[in-house]
């Protein structure tokens, strides 16, 4: 039974993609008809440095089973250093959430450039697999509450 739920479980992944690299990379994956899991809901932001770490928390509250933040490779940021800031932020946030008992598989970060349509597919597959392995987020979601 537990196994059945595990495989039936289709996680919701919220992905914050930077406009210049990762969004274009995901777009490339789409236009080249690359097949990748459909669990991801993309939110385009100008830069991974724009992603407030509270977005991750709010997404998990609102029903995301996992969150992905993706930006340009180090050195390639359109705004020079936004992804470097993001890297520090999400490393700390990920560790911190793990300390509270939120599996690190739920908070991921990746570098995907505009030309890496294939990498995007791999990233998504890994994220989805990771979240599937830890199961649905059921720790502090709002919908668990009985209003």
């Amino acid at each position, binding site marked *: 039974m537990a196994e059945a739920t595990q495989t039936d479980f289709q996680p919701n992944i919220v992905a914050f993609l930077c406009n210049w690299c990762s969004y274009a990379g995901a777009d490339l994956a789409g236009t080249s008809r690359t097949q990748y899991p459909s669990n991801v809901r993309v939110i385009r932001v100008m830069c991974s440095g724009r992603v407030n*770490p*509270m977005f991750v*928390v*709010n997404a998990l*509250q609102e029903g995301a089973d996992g969150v992905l933040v993706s930006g340009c490779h*180090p*050195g390639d940021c359109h705004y020079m*250093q936004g992804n*470097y*800031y993001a*890297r*520090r*932020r*999400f*490393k*700390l*946030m*990920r*560790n*911190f*959430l*793990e*300390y*509270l*008992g*939120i*599996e*690190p598989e739920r908070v*991921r*970060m*990746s*570098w995907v450039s505009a030309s890496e349509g294939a990498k995007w597919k*791999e*990233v998504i597959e*890994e*994220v989805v697999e990771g979240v599937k392995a*830890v199961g649905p987020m059921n*720790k*502090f*979601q*709002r919908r*668990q*509450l009985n209003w």
Partner: protein
Amino acid sequence: MVDVSKLRETAREIISREDVRELIGYRAGTYGFRARPAFVYDPGEVDQLIFNPACVNNLATYITLEEKLPVPRGQEPDLRKVAVMVKGCDSRALVQQMAENAYERDRILVIGIPCTGVVDMDKVQARFPDVLGPGEISLEGDKFVLIFDGRREEIPKEELLADKCKRCRFPTPLVYDVLLDEEVAPFATDDYSDVEALESRSQDEKWAYWEEKFSRCIRCYSCRNVCPMCYCNDCILDRLRPQWIRRSVDISENTAFHIARAYHLAGRCIQCGECQRVCPVEIPLMELNRKLYKDVEELYDFEPGVKVDAPPLLSSYRPDDPEDFIL
């Protein structure tokens, strides 16, 4: 031990200065062994000032807590200094505030107190619940001496000492204009064993642990208000547009609140322990702050509150910051 008459004399000199508006120190509390913040505006008020191991409050908070009213037209703003008494741990809050440009160094006058440790008032209260007081606490060697109602009790230091003091690495203030006593050599170290113990548990155990703690939270925000580093004019906890954290009190919002509070102190918390001390429902907030403190130190070799010219942790980076977690 700080000599009280010297403390008062120093305070008298300072508050008599024309460029000093007020002096923030300690005075006896209203019951038991408590001490509390004292605000002195006039040389005539210095005789209430004290310092002893009951002086737990971090007075650095008051520098940034002040609510400024608009200066009436035609009047000049009062730019005189605020003098503040700080222990070693408290002084780090001043350092961090100044590192963040919260105010200029010449706005404050720091009276440093080399500190040999303060008590955990809850432990004192638990031992002597019926003492109306006024009771006095002092440290003699490795014993706290409590004097009350004509009695004298000696308790081993270890038993009443606040947890934060047991791992204090900065007993002497890092910034001061006047130092009230000889420097105190560090008498403790910090191995983060408490954080590591929790880290090593399973995810579900960790969540069960925190769920119970967070479920008690009543969101009185005393942890935020007492924090010397929580001085944003526009705190995300109060914002309505956007409303980052809802006002309703439930496990979801409480968790989000505690994540936000601790995370906003990443690379900023100086471990004065005030948040945990004031929490009425005894949430171990320092265990949250210390996790981030430990990570920041391990990952970025960064320690807040020790250098006035340190760049803020989260608005700086090194190209070779760890990125093992990145796909």
